């Protein structure tokens, strides 16, 4: 039985989740283009952000805004440390793409289980950020929490800031140049070493933000980031590895997942836990039919 009220709340949820997918996907896209690698530990950047905000707000009564900032800082720092200690040395040694991917798998396992050990020791294997939300208004019989007002606009704002950085500042243009052609960037006099560091800091910060938002939205476990990788990769690839494309794809996936799951449930009785299969199917379909995604990098500037 499809009810308007339920459909609306599913739609809203899809937007909310989509905005977080957009953030996670955009940071993944940036890391793929800027560092020329697939980072399987990307999800862990979000996990760390999620745990930082959850622990700070729940156990130390830290103000949510400050906690979000700390989360972003922690993830940014982690991203930088990982690159400097593992990825960069491998690239320097001439490791091939598979070896670097393998290293990122190892990093992913390391961080994830380090968080597991911490969470188990502190008895917080499932947790949520202690963020006070209030019901803003009621629309078509659906309560709209203030969470929507925080997360969705903030995500859009973050993407906007990123876009502006990439389009208008010299650093942003250098990052885009480096993404296009790393050797030519070097030859143009760009300090690619320093630039790579900036890229990882930005990637980590945005991924951490996505994780922090998720902790505000739902319960988290140490696997939360890894589980979100499906959606992040789907957003990035369906979006054609561009900033704009990934954001749009993130929202599409969030909506498709939620509305699809709801409709399938109501009409065919398909359990809603299968929603991630929808995302996966979209990804496979795109990879086989149109691997360049929504927007091809060649034709877009961002």
């Amino acid at each position, binding site marked *: 039985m499809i009810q308007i009220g339920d459909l609306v709340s599913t739609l809203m949820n899809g937007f909310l989740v989509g905005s977080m997918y957009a953030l996670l996907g955009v940071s993944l896209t940036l890391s793929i283009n800027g560092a020329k690698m697939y980072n399987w530990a990307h999800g862990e950047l979000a996990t760390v952000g999620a745990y930082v905000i959850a622990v700070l707000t729940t156990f130390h009564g830290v103000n949510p805004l400050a906690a979000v900032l700390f989360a972003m800082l922690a993830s940014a720092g982690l991203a930088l440390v990982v690159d400097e200690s593992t990825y960069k040395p491998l690239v320097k040694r001439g490791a091939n793409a598979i070896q670097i991917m393998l290293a990122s798998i190892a990093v992913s396992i390391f961080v994830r289980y380090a968080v597991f050990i911490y969470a188990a020791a502190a008895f917080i294997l499932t947790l949520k950020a202690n963020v006070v939300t209030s019901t803003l208004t009621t629309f078509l019989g659906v309560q709209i929490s203030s969470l929507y007002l925080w997360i969705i606009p903030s995500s859009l704002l973050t993407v906007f800031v990123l876009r502006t950085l990439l389009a208008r500042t010299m650093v942003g*243009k*250098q990052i885009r*140049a480096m993404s*296009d052609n790393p*050797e030519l960037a*070097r*030859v143009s*006099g760009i300090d690619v070493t320093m630039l790579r560091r900036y890229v990882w800091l930005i990637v980590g910060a945005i991924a951490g933000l996505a994780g922090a938002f998720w902790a505000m939205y739902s319960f988290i476990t140490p696997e939360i980031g890894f589980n979100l990788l499906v959606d992040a990769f789907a957003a990035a690839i369906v979006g054609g590895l561009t900033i704009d494309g990934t954001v749009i794809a993130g929202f599409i996936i969030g909506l498709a997942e939620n509305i699809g799951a709801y409709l399938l449930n109501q009409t065919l009785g398909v359990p809603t836990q299968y929603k991630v299969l929808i995302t996966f199917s979209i990804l496979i379909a795109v990879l086989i039919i149109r691997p360049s995604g929504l927007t091809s990098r*060649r034709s877009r*500037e961002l």
Partner: protein
Amino acid sequence: MVRKPILEATGVSCGYGKMHIVNDVSFSLHESEIALIMGPNGSGKSTLVKAIVGLIDIFDGHILLAGNELVGRSTAKIIKMGISFVPQTNNIFPSLSVHENLEIGSTLIEHELRQGSIDEIYGLFPELKAKRGDSANSLSGGERQILAIARGLIGKPRILILDEPTAGLAPKIAKNVMARIRGIREKGVSVVLVEQNARAALNIADTGFVLVAGSKLAEGTSEELIKNEDVVQLFLGRLGGREPTPKPSQ
């Protein structure tokens, strides 16, 4: 008129890993001079010029830029010292606009002077100005080469290295590009030109040498090279001023 040497390479051997591509090559480039490096495919021309800017390992020899040693320095340092390199392929940033490509080229220029340098380049290459907002990807082959050269030129380098700038271009466009390269010399920039299109290149070059299988085969001024029998045989053949000897029917 005696020109001062600005780049002096002595006994340079370079290559990848353990493979020596270039063996014991020496040459010099003088101020406001266009020097041509000719040779068949795979002779090591690209390898040699990439080694000058530090992209390829140099095993032996010295390269002096106005007396300063380049061997062993990082690419970043070499660029800062005033050498600019335009690769043969992948020599622009496709997703950036024409203007942004030039902005990247002006990375090492002080902030306040940047726009001025870019305007100068627009003066030299008005067709780029006309398309300044377009994505570099949308340019034609010839326009891309012009953009690639312009990007290399913006930083007002002392030496500009061009690796086969007319490769794959239609003859008329190639001629245009060559003419622009000649114009660069007028601006006081010394040019190292790597070219397969030997005849057209010899028309604008002052000196040059031939690289075959990593070693120098012949060298001299461009007039000397045009008259050199070996060079003519190897490279100028049909492109030379003479009629080709009719081949037996194939």
